[in-house]
Structure formats: structure tokens, C-alpha cells
């Protein structure tokens, strides 16, 4: 059993009439990166601020290293935090910024010097200690904020969308680098983002939040490929969504009827007649110009003729919009290895969908 460093139990928080967190439970194991992912207003930053002690919960427990810390001020919680704005002290040099928390702890000068140097080499910026934050680029500031939070050797590192102020290219670079750094130090990290790709890149586990609740906590692989609700499915990546009804239940698969199209799905646990939401990721659908076999018994289980209505060429991939049975609009993403393979608008093709790619969800009662 892994050691649990941070534990949240039945946390509730309201701002005025707004119930932001509703009985939130969460456990973060030692050394892992757990990401709180959700749309803005779902309560993820509130959760982070509660852990840091910057705000207090209405009820519930915050347990750090087995100790209830609800009554502790932020100063006493031993958490490091990197803010969205990085919150560097502009009137202090990089050295003074990183040394700030150590001076508070009254470390001797020589030890502080050593630690600051260590931190600067960790973030691979050894020669900037006498610069002021305004003299640094965005990426450098972000790294200094990271170093400042880590210098005090916290038990938990809290990251509040630290990449959102960076441009696209730099952001991707920093995500990978931060992940590398985190693994190098092995610090337990609670990371907040609304960017699904960032969540998948950075995390050991992803907790998808919606309306003050955690909908699903799983590895990136699982939340993406095996989402528990259609909200999780749609929030993490694209999906073709259809509303339908289970028409037949077999031992190994179910049949779902959606406006004239019958999908075969290997997702089980549904009853005949049940209203369901069908979700299919665009990259799980393949297109072909022929049926692949002349024997009807050997035919692919989910194969439907469709007409290409639009093609968006993106270099490594192409995104197609197709009309299925004249009513459904289906989006398909395919790799473009061979230019000959790229379909043209108006072309009649076959959609092939593996049964395990047909995700089924019980109809949600409007809580997405």
C-alpha cells in the first residue's frame, strides 16, 4: 500500500450562495502527480487554496501526513505553491526570491547560498541569481517560481495553472520539463488545470471535477479511454455523441439503436430499452473505400456507408466530417501516411468502428 501524503475528507466550501465544493474526497499518494482537471468554476482552485490554507473549509478534514491541518495557518502547512501569475516578488532578485522562505526559517547564510545554487541548477538557470524578475522571460519566471516553492522542501507541491501564461510552444516544453523535475525530486504534487492535454502529460492520476465534485479519478490512460460519464468523455478530447436506446443485450455485447443506425458495443451492464448516450472518439473510427470482405458473415461488426462532406488537412492527420445515413454528422481523425489515401469531399466510404470504441453512458440528468 502506497503511503498517502494528502487526504481530503468530505470538504465543503461555499462562497455566499454558491456551493463550490460538495463533500469532496481525495487522496494523493507519496510522490505522485494528481491533477485536478475541470472547467472553470468547478472548484479546483478552491480545493488547492484549501490545501494551502489560504481559505478555510466550511466542513471536512484536510489531512497532511496523517495530521489534521485544518487549524494550521498557511505558514505552518509545509506546502509549496506555484501560482498562475507565479507571484514572484518583483523588488527582489532571483536569489532573494528563492532564499525568501529559507530566510524565514533562519537558515545560516552559507546553507542558503548552497540551496539557492542547487535550486538554480535544478531549473537549469545557474547564472540568473542577480537578475530581477522583470529581466526574465516568462518561461524563466515560471521556473524561478517553481524553484522558490521547492527550496523550502515542502511536503506537497501545489501548482495552480502555472503554464497558462506561457505561449503554446513554451507551455508544452515546460510541461515536459516540470514533469521531469517532479520525478527527479519525487515530490508529491497536486496540480490544477483546465487543459486536458496538460493533465494527460503531467499526471500519474487525473481527477476530473465538475460542479464541486470529483467525477472520476484514474490514470490518464483510463480517464481518456474508459471515461465513467459522458462529461468526462467530452471534457477529455473530442467525441462523436449520439443519443440512443439499447435494443438488444447479448452475452458479449449490446446493440444500441440511434436514429436508424445500430451500433455494436462491447460495453456491458445495460438493460434492453435503456436510454443511453453513445460516444465514439474520432481517432477510433477508420475509413475505407471497400467493405474488406464479400462474405456477409465476416463483415466488420460496425460498418456503415457514409459520404465525406468536409476534409481538413492538418499535416500528420486529416479531420473528416461525414454524413451517416443522411442524418448523423460524424467526425473522424485519420493519420495521413499516404497522400493517395486522403479521401475527397463527396466520396462514398465505409466507417469501421471497433465495438470496444463504442462507449456507452447512462443518460445523465443534466449535471454535466
Amino acid at each position, binding site marked *: 500500500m502506497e503511503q498517502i501524503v494528502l487526504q481530503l475528507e468530505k470538504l465543503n466550501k461555499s462562497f455566499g450562495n454558491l456551493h463550490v465544493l460538495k463533500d469532496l474526497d481525495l487522496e494523493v499518494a507519496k510522490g505522485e502527480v494528481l491533477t485536478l482537471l475541470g472547467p472553470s468554476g468547478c472548484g479546483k482552485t478552491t480545493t488547492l487554496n484549501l490545501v494551502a490554507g*489560504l481559505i478555510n473549509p466550511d466542513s471536512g478534514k484536510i489531512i497532511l501526513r496523517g495530521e489534521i491541518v485544518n487549524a494550521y495557518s498557511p505558514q505552518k502547512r509545509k506546502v509549496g505553491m506555484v501560482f*498562475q501569475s507565479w507571484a*514572484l516578488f518583483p523588488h527582489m532578485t532571483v536569489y532573494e526570491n528563492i532564499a525568501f*522562505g529559507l530566510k524565514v526559517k533562519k537558515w545560516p547564510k552559507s546553507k542558503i547560498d548552497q540551496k539557492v545554487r542547487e535550486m538554480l541548477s535544478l531549473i537549469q538557470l545557474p547564472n540568473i541569481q542577480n537578475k530581477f*524578475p522583470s529581466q526574465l522571460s516568462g518561461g524563466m*519566471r515560471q521556473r524561478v517560481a517553481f524553484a522558490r516553492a521547492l527550496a523550502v522542501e515542502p511536503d506537497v507541491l501545489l501548482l495552480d495553472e502555472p503554464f497558462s501564461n506561457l505561449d503554446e510552444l513554451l507551455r508544452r516544453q515546460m510541461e515536459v520539463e516540470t514533469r521531469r523535475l517532479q520525478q527527479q525530486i519525487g515530490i508529491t504534487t497536486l496540480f490544477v488545470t483546465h487543459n486536458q492535454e496538460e493533465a494527460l502529460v503531467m499526471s500519474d492520476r487525473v481527477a476530473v471535477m465538475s460542479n464541486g465534485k470529483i467525477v472520476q479519478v484514474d490514470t490518464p490512460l483510463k480517464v481518456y479511454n474508459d471515461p465513467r460519464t459522458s462529461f468526462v468523455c467530452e471534457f477529455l478530447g473530442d467525441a462523436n455523441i449520439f443519443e440512443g436506446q439499447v435494443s438488444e443485450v447479448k452475452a458479449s455485447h449490446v446493440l444500441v439503436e440511434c436514429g436508424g443506425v445500430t451500433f455494436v458495443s462491447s460495453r456491458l451492464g445495460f438493460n434492453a430499452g435503456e436510454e443511453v448516450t453513445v460516444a465514439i472518439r474520432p481517432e477510433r473510427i477508420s475509413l475505407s473505400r471497400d467493405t474488406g470482405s464479400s462474405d456477409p458473415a465476416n463483415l466488420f461488426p460496425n460498418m456503415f456507408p457514409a459520404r465525406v462532406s468536409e476534409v481538413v488537412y492538418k499535416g500528420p492527420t486529416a479531420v473528416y466530417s461525414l454524413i451517416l445515413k443522411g442524418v448523423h454528422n460524424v467526425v473522424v481523425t485519420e493519420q495521413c501516411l499516404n497522400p493517395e489515401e486522403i479521401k475527397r469531399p463527396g466520396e462514398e466510404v465505409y466507417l469501421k468502428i471497433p465495438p470496444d470504441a463504442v462507449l456507452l453512458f447512462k443518460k445523465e440528468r443534466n449535471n454535466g
Partner: protein
Amino acid sequence: MGKSGLVSRLVYPTRRYSWIIMIMPGLLVLVIFFLVPMVRLAQLAFYQPDPIWIYKPAFTLTNFAKFFSDPFYWGMIFNSLRVGLLTTVCTLLVGYPIAYYLSLSRGTERTILTAGFMLPLFVTMLVGTLGWYILFLPFGLVQRILQSLGLVSGPLRVLKTFTALVVVLGYLHLPYALLILVSSIQSVPREKIDAARTLGAPTWMIFLKIVLPLTMPGITSSAILVFALSSSSYLVPVLITGQSIPLLPIAIWRYTNETLNWPFAAANALILFAITIVVMYGLILLTNRISRRGKWEVV
């Protein structure tokens, strides 16, 4: 942009010379009503006084010689400096905590408090000062309160004192300091304070190491304003201390209107002007040094 003419120049101020149009009205007012009189004043300070023509346009340094050779005038400089600096220090010491509280308060509380502290701005200085005058009168309210507490006995001599002058000047100039300080304190991002808290810094340290340095520009500008206003104040010293404390502004008034020695009055005015500038500059240098301003920018 492909547009031309006066209107587009005003709308698109990035054009090369359009800034001239934007600053022209203000510049014109400054030149006519400030620069021209100041040059004239400086000229006058080097003229000879004349009993019939008031001044004779002949260059002389006697006005300054007279001023600097008499310890009475040196005392006047000292008094004016003392009034200005003491009022500035007291106003900031009282004003900063108020501004801090105001910047944290919200809603109705804030509206009421702000209105209360800004009140001196809506009352003319004369009325405001007279209010204090009545309070400070021998056997006035201040005395009655102190007497009932058993702190003093016999007629209280507050009215003509230096302390009273500083109190009234501080009260009247507090709103200016507050206006600047509140906006300055409010511009310190909440996240910076939170960052310091998660790094373990106690509240007093956050104040000294983060809030104070980041609000230093606001402190400097309010200090300059309060110093300039209080060291040059005429009305308040006349009413509160009268002739008992010699001050430059009162002297200037008397030489202008009573003894009609305009060149000497001009010399006094020029000296007051120089003192104010020197103190302001010194203040800026000092606070810039403390906060290392100019090396860093807000991020």
C-alpha cells in the same frame, strides 16, 4: 491606417507628432499661469526694493544677503521644514494603517469610511481649520475632555502651539495621502502575499518585506504632496499659531502686503520653492535607494 487630418491624429495618438496636440492645452496653461509668473518672481528677487516704485529693476543680491545673514530667517526655514516634515511623517503614520484597512474593506463599510475620511476635501480649508480653532480654544472641548479626565488643570495652551499646527495640517491633508496610499496598497497583488504566506513568512515580515517596498512609490508621492502642501500652507498657521511661530509663507504674505517689500518677498518665495524641491528630491532619492527602484519593474 490611411487616415489624415486632425481628428484621426487625436484618435490615433501613436502618430509621430500627435502627442504635441494631446499635451498642448495643458502645456499652454502651465506656461502662462506657472512658468511666466515664476520667471517674473525669480527676476523680482534680484531687484532692489524701492519705497516709491516698490522695486527698481537693478540687479542685486542684497535680498538674499539680508535673509541669510539674519538668524531669525534661518529659524524661519527651520520652522517651515519642521512643520512640513513632521506633518508628513505624522500623516503617513496615521494614514498608512487607515489606507491598509480601507483597501481591505468592501461594500457599505468602505463607502462610509471613505466618505468619512474624505470629508475634509469637501469642506473649505477655512471652515475645517476654524472647527479645530474652536476645539482648541482655552476652555474649549479639548480642554474640557482633558480636564474631566483629570489630565490638566487651568487654561490649556494648545491653540498657539506647534503640536496643534501639525495636528490640523495633518488632518486637512490626510485625504490626499489616503487617496494615493489606498490605490497603491490595492495594486499589490493578493497572490504575492499568499505566496509569502505559503513560504512561511509571518504577517509582520510580509508587511515589511513585501507590502512596504511594493507600496514605496505611493508612500513617496503622498509624502511629497503632504510636505509641499503643509510647508507652504498659509491659512492654517495664520489661524492656529498666528505670529507665534515665524514661518516662510506668513513672512511672504507680510512682505508683500504689509511692508510692500516685493523683492524681499520674492526672495523668500524663491527660497521656500528651493527648499521644497530639495526635500522632494532628497525624499525620492532616499526611497528609491531603500526600495532599489529603477532596477526592477512590477511583474
